[in-house]
C-alpha cells in the first residue's frame, strides 16, 4: 500500500508540476490554493483525524511560518526560509502540545483556537513593541513559479508523509490514541510523546505553507496571516473529506477550493449562502465524508489489514 500510494503521489505531483507551463497565471494560482489546502488538510488529518484531537490551531502555525518568511526572506536562501517556517511552527506546536494535549474533545478544539488567537495578538504586540510596526513589507520575493513549485513540494511532502505515517507504527499509535487513548497506553504506546510529535509534525507543514504563501502578498500583518478562517477551512475540508482517510481530505481540498472559486466567480453576491448550504448538506448526508463514497475500497486499503 505504502509503495503504491507513494507512486501515485509521485504521478500526481508530476502532472501538477507541469501546470505553470500549461495554464495561465490565474489557473496556476487556483491550483496553488488547492495545493495549499491539500497540504494543510492532509497534514491536519494525519494528526487530528487519526487521534480525534480536533485542532483549530492551523492558522497559528501558518501565521508563524508567514512571519518567519517575512523576517528572513531577504537574508536567507529560499529553502532555508521554508525550513525555518516549518521548524518554528513545529517547535511552537511541540511546546504548546506539552501544555494542552492532556485535554480532549471540545476543550482541545477551543484551546487550540485560543492558542492561535493568543499567538496572533502576541505577535502583534511583540512586533509593535520591538520592531515598531505590525505589518511587514516583503519586497524581495521569489518568482510566483518558484512559490508554486514550493507549495507543490510541501503538498507532496504532506501527502507522502501521511502515507508513510499511515503504514508505520507511529501512525498506528495515532490511530490507537484516537480509538481509546488509555487503552493504547496500557498496550505500550507512549501517548504523550506520540501526541506531541504528531502535533508538531502536522504543524510543520502548515508553517512551511505559511512561509511559502506569505511572499505572494507583498505585505503581511497578523490579521491576514493568522486569519482563523485558514484553520477553520482546513478542518472543514478534512472533515468533509473524511478525516480518517488519506484520499478524502486531498480530494475535498480540490473539490472545495474549486467549488468555492467557481461559485464566487459565477454568483458574486450569493455564493457563500450556496456554499454554506452545500456544507450543511454534505455534513448531514455524508456521515463518513467524501471518503464514505468509496468506503468499501478504503476498507480494503487499510494498511494494517493489507500487510
Amino acid at each position, binding site marked *: 500500500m505504502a509503495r503504491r500510494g507513494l507512486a501515485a*503521489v509521485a504521478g500526481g505531483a508530476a502532472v501538477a508540476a507541469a501546470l505553470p507551463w500549461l495554464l495561465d497565471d490565474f489557473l496556476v*494560482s487556483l491550483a496553488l490554493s488547492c495545493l495549499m489546502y491539500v497540504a494543510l488538510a492532509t497534514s491536519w488529518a494525519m494528526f487530528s483525524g487519526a487521534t480525534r484531537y480536533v485542532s483549530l490551531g492551523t492558522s497559528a502555525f501558518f501565521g508563524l511560518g508567514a512571519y518567519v518568511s517575512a523576517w528572513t526572506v531577504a537574508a536567507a536562501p529560499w529553502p532555508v526560509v521554508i525550513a525555518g517556517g516549518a521548524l518554528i511552527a513545529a517547535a511552537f506546536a511541540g511546546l504548546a502540545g506539552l501544555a494542552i494535549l492532556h485535554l480532549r474533545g471540545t476543550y482541545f478544539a477551543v484551546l487550540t483556537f485560543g492558542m492561535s488567537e493568543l499567538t496572533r495578538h502576541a505577535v502583534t504586540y511583540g512586533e509593535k513593541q520591538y520592531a515598531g510596526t505590525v505589518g511587514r513589507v516583503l519586497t524581495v520575493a521569489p518568482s510566483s513559479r518558484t512559490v508554486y513549485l514550493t507549495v507543490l513540494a510541501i503538498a507532496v511532502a504532506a501527502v507522502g508523509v501521511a502515507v508513510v505515517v499511515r503504514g508505520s507504527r507511529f501512525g498506528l499509535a495515532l490511530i490507537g490514541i484516537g480509538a481509546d487513548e488509555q487503552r493504547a497506553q496500557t498496550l505500550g504506546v507512549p501517548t504523550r510523546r506520540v501526541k506531541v510529535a504528531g502535533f508538531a509534525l502536522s504543524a510543520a507543514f502548515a508553517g512551511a505553507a505559511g512561509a511559502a504563501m506569505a511572499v505572494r*502578498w507583498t505585505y503581511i500583518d497578523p*490579521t491576514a496571516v493568522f486569519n482563523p478562517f485558514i484553520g477553520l477551512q482546513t478542518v472543514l475540508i478534512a472533515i468533509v473529506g473524511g478525516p480518517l482517510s488519506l*484520499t478524502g481530505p486531498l480530494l475535498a481540498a480540490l473539490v472545495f477550493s474549486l467549488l468555492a472559486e467557481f461559485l464566487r466567480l459565477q454568483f458574486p453576491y450569493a455564493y457563500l449562502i450556496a456554499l454554506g448550504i452545500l456544507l450543511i448538506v454534505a455534513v448531514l448526508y455524508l456521515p463518513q465524508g467524501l471518503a464514505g463514497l468509496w468506503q468499501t475500497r478504503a476498507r480494503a486499503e487499510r494498511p494494517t489489514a493489507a500487510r
Partner: protein
Amino acid sequence: MMRVLAIALVAALVLVGASLDTSAQSDAPPIKIGYAISRTGPFAPGAQATQEPSYILWAEQVNAAGGLNVKGQKRKIELVSYDDRSEVETIVRTFEKLMVTDKVDLILPPWGSTANFAVAPLADKHGYPVLAPTALSMKLVDMKLPNFFSMLPQPYVLMAAAADMLAANGVKTVAVIYMDDVFGLENIAAFEPAVKAKGIEIVDKKSYPLGIKDLSPVLRAIKDKNPDAFVGLTYPPDTILASKQSKEIGFNPKVFFTAVGTAFPLYKQVMGADSDGVSGIGSWSVKTSPAAKAYFDAHVKRFQKEPDRWASAHCWAGLQILQAAIEKVGMDRKAIREYIASNEHATIIGPVRFKGSEIQFPGTVGQWVGGDFEVVWPANRATAKLVVPKPAWK
C-alpha cells in the same frame, strides 16, 4: 487513483476558467474594467462605504452618456467585478484572473492598504495603472512602483495639517490613542514629530487593538490629565466608540479629533447633535465645488446613502482622472500611465498632480459644523469656519 485526481484537477481548472470567460460581443466593443473588492468579510464595511458605490455610479453615468470617447468612438464600460472575501490570497488570485485570463482593459484598485500592497506590485508587473483611493502607507509609496498612484495624501501630510490646526488654536497639550495596525502606527509616527515641532506636549499616548469594545478605562485616565485636545487615530467603530464614551464620562477637550469614520454619515446618525464640533480627517463637502455637489447628489439618489467626506471623493477623483486619460490618449495602458503621471488633473476635490506615487494634495481637517461635515483647515480649502472650542457633549 492519484493520477486520475491530477487529471481531474486540470480538467476542472480549465473548466472553471472557461466557464467564466465572459466575452460579450457588440458593435462598439465595451471597455472592460475589472476589479475585486470586499463584499464579504472584515474589509466589507469600509469597501462598501467608500469605494464600490463610486465604481458602480461612475460606470452607470458614463454609459448613460453613451460611453467613453475613445479616439472618436463611443465605447461603453463593462465592469467585471468579483468579491475578494477580504482575503489577500483571493485578492491576488482574482486580480491575476482579471489581468491575465479575462484580459480586462483596465483595473480598479481593491479597498484598504493591505489589499493594495498585494495588488500594486502585481498590477505594476502586468503594466496596469492603479489609482488607489484607500491605500495609506508610506511603505507603499516608497516601493516606487511606476504604475501605482495613491489618491490620498500620506500620513505625514495629514498629521502635519492636524498639528497646524491644533497649534493655531492654542492647543498646548494633547492626548492621543491609535490603533495597532499600519494605519495607526504610521500616523502616530507622523503625528509625534509634527506636534512636537509646534511645541505641543503629548500628555498621554495609548494604543489599542482591532475590535475593541470598551475604551472608557483609557478615556477616563486621559480625562484626568485634562489635555487641551484629544486625537484618535481610529477606524470607524472605534471612532464612534471613543466619541460615545467620551460623552459618557463627560470628557470635553477643546478639540476632539478622530480619524476614519468621523466623515461618515453614520457618525451623525449615531451621535446626533453631539456630532457638532467634532473634527476628523475629511477633505471635501458639497460646498467644495459644484462637481462635488453633483457627485454627492447622484450618490444619494443611486444608493440612498451619502458618500463619506473623505476617501469617497478621492475615489471619484481617481475615476475622473482615469476617464480623462482614456479620452485623451486612448486605451494604451502605457500612455494612460504617462498621462496620469505627468499632468495636472481637474477633479471634484480640486486640481491634483502626482509626484512619484504620491498625490500632491494638501492635508486637510474636517469638522461637523451645523449638521454637516465641512472642511475647516487649511483656510484656503475651508468650506466652513472651524469651531474651537468644541461645544460640550449634550
